[in-house]
């Protein structure tokens, strides 16, 4: 995809970044103590904190990743929204108030509050760092994809901008600025997304996604072909790779007309002939150069996709619905046939061609699971993978360090509870919007099929550059804010948990803040590096992994400390160790990681991608067994279970 940069978009982006930096410097003057740096002094209002929760949570994964996944895989993308929101019920009902009651600055404080154990301090700090770094990767990848259409810069530049700006923010003001940045960003994101959804409904559904008449959509052709003298014949075209070629074996042919090559999806007709549907393709040569539809990217031969093939209302086909309400939109969508896009790889010599081909799909099929997750006629392992992911999403939220530390920024347990409810309301509303944003992108001809992360901002672009500029800048601020929160959590783990508590360095209050700031800079550097090497992966998918690690390493320890009196310090440390190593280990040998290593996914030692259904029970079992074995050494002495 080739994007044209707008001075307005660039200007707005710069204003947003400067505003965020200005706010940080302003608040930095008020942050001199460790309590101010790590917990904003514990005096943030619950409503502000609740919207800041939404700001923290509605990260690149929600805004970019989920919308992109819905735009290409329908309901399966929305399953992430449902799972992410359900996780908040664990946070509200089980974790919010006890976390506030037990902790000081970090999640480790709460775990360690009844034991003062070196092993808990070490393991919890390592876990916080691991989860935060895993969560940082998708945020940085999101930043990279945003700057390409916004500023016309390559992926790595976006990653570096976020890394540097956030490190400056965190190294200046800590949790107070992070909270206010998240508050403004969370509120603006909700407002702007509502506006975009309103415009999507006003535009309605149509078979010609010409963006309100402002942009012509590429007309995908269908050709007829016959087999004569043993070879495929297509009128007006020369066959470059026919039925016997590698393309033909994969169900495609490559044709040429006026020197321009094109790839077509073969469909055999009942009369023995073929119909050919136009496809999109990207060829990667051995030297790493890429051609998009046979030409360099700059030539603009690669098209945005996303259109409806047929809309049926009361048994009659129509071209345009006109403005519709939210329920009518889903109703009309359900009765339409929408063109989705399949993906296949063809290898010829050293060159690999990725082919994106049309898959007309009934709307009702898109509005139920199964297009991304293998649940239809699936093997037991496929179903296990799906359930494991949904378990990770459910259990992960209440174990994310950057969410947990937000409980220390409010003054009381009631404020912790109320801010969680505000967060649930804001996040739930946004997740309803994601369904419309995703389906809107799917039907408005805006999807970059090679990287679906930009679907929501590009949908906004179809309504004009102003909305696109605001939404993209907000999305960038989203990344800035979430990365800030993660880096504060990581810095707290290093400076407060490891250096001060575990190593007993007895730093002064000022020393603790300085150590946190230096840690923030190192972690920022690591995040930049990881953001660059994970380019191209769906950010919500990556967040699924972060949730699995958090849920496995942290949640069993949090819940058992609160609700099982026999929990011991050794049990907690063992639980974190087993949860962390098993989830990370399973991810590192998963099929999707095998692809990142440049290997074939089917050669991976395990056949599933989501480890939570194994690593969460393993973590619970480790805690129970070790606690039972070590009863005399470290049984809980205080009131113990809250229930």
């Amino acid at each position, binding site marked *: 995809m080739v994007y044209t940069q707008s001075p307005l978009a660039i200007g707005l982006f710069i204003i947003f970044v400067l505003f965020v930096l200005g706010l940080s410097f302003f608040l930095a003057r008020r942050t001199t103590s460790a*309590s101010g740096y790590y*917990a904003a*002094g*514990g*005096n943030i209002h619950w409503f502000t904190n609740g919207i800041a929760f939404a700001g923290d949570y509605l990260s690149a994964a929600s805004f970019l990743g989920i919308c992109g996944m819905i735009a290409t895989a329908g*309901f399966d993308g*929305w399953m992430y929204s*449902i799972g992410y*929101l*359900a996780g908040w*019920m*664990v946070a*509200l*009902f*089980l974790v919010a*108030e006890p976390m*506030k*009651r*037990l*902790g*000081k*600055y970090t999640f480790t*404080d709460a775990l*360690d*509050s009844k034991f*003062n154990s070196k092993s808990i301090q070490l393991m919890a700090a390592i876990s916080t760092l691991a989860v935060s770094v895993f969560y940082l990767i998708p945020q940085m990848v999101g930043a990279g994809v945003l700057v390409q259409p916004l500023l016309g810069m390559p992926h790595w530049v976006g990653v570096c901008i976020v890394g540097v700006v956030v490190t400056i923010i965190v190294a200046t003001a800590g949790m107070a600025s992070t909270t206010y940045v998240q508050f403004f960003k969370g509120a603006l994101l909700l407002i702007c997304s509502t506006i975009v959804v309103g415009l999507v409904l006003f535009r309605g559904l149509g078979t010609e996604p010409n963006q309100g008449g402002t942009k012509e959509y590429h007309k995908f052709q269908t050709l007829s072909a016959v087999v004569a003298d043993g070879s495929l014949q297509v009128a007006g075209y020369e066959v470059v790779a026919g039925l016997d070629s590698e393309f033909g074996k994969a169900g495609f042919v490559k044709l040429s007309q006026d020197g321009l090559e094109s790839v077509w999806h073969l469909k055999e007709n009942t009369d023995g002939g073929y119909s050919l549907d136009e496809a999109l393709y990207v060829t990667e040569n051995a030297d790493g150069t890429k051609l998009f539809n046979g030409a360099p990217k700059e030539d603009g031969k690669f098209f945005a996709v996303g259109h409806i093939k047929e809309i049926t209302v009361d048994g009659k086909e129509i071209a345009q619905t006109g403005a519709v309400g939210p*329920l009518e939109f*889903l*109703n009309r969508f*359900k009765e339409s046939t929408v063109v989705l896009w399949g993906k296949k790889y063809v290898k010829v010599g050293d060159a690999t061609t990725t082919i994106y081909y049309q898959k007309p799909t009934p709307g*009702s099929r898109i*509005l*139920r*699971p*199964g297009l991304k*997750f293998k*649940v*239809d006629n699936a093997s037991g392992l496929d179903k296990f993978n*799906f*359930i494991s992911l949904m*378990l990770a999403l*459910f259990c992960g939220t209440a174990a994310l360090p950057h969410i947990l530390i937000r409980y*220390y920024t409010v*003054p*009381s*347990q*009631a404020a912790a*509870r109320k801010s*969680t*409810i505000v967060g*649930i*309301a804001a996040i*739930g509303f946004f997740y*309803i919007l994601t*369904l419309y944003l995703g389906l809107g992108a799917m039907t408005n001809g805006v999807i970059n099929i090679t990287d679906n992360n930009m679907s929501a901002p590009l949908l906004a672009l179809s309504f004009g550059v102003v909305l696109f500029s605001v939404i993209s800048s907000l999305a960038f601020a989203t990344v800035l804010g979430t990365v800030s929160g993660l880096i504060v959590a990581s810095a707290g783990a290093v400076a407060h948990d490891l250096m*001060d508590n575990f190593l007993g360095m007895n730093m002064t209050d000022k020393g603790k803040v300085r150590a946190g700031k230096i840690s923030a800079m190192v972690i920022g550097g690591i995040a930049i590096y990881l953001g660059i090497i994970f380019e191209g992966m769906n950010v919500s998918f990556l967040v699924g992994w972060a949730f699995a690690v958090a849920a496995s390493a942290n949640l069993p320890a949090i819940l058992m400390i*609160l*609700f099982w009196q026999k929990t011991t310090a050794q049990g907690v440390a063992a639980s974190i160790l087993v949860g962390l190593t098993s989830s990370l280990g399973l991810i590192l040998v998963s099929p999707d990681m095998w692809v990142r290593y440049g290997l074939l996914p089917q050669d991976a030692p395990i056949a599933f991608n989501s480890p939570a259904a194994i690593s969460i029970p393993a973590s619970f079992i480790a805690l129970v067994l070790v606690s039972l074995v070590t009863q005399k050494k470290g049984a809980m002495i205080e009131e113990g279970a*809250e*229930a």
Partner: protein
Amino acid sequence: MGHGPAVKLAKDNAAGYKARIGISMFIVYTLTYFGFVVINAVNPTLMEKVYFGQTLAVLYGFFLIIFAFVLAIIYNHFCTAAEARLN
């Protein structure tokens, strides 16, 4: 170094009551959520069936989001009342 709260908290006599309500509501929501997950995994075609003009998948998804908010409000109501009564 101490591990106490960042701000001094008053003793909360309602903590046990709130925890019990929280666990009950957690069980209710968890069963509802895993009902959704199990139907999706075991019988995904059921999710394509249309009720009240929408697929079951969409209806159940909306229900889970709205139900979360409703439960949260009810939980807060009981907790606030308990805090006023017991503290």
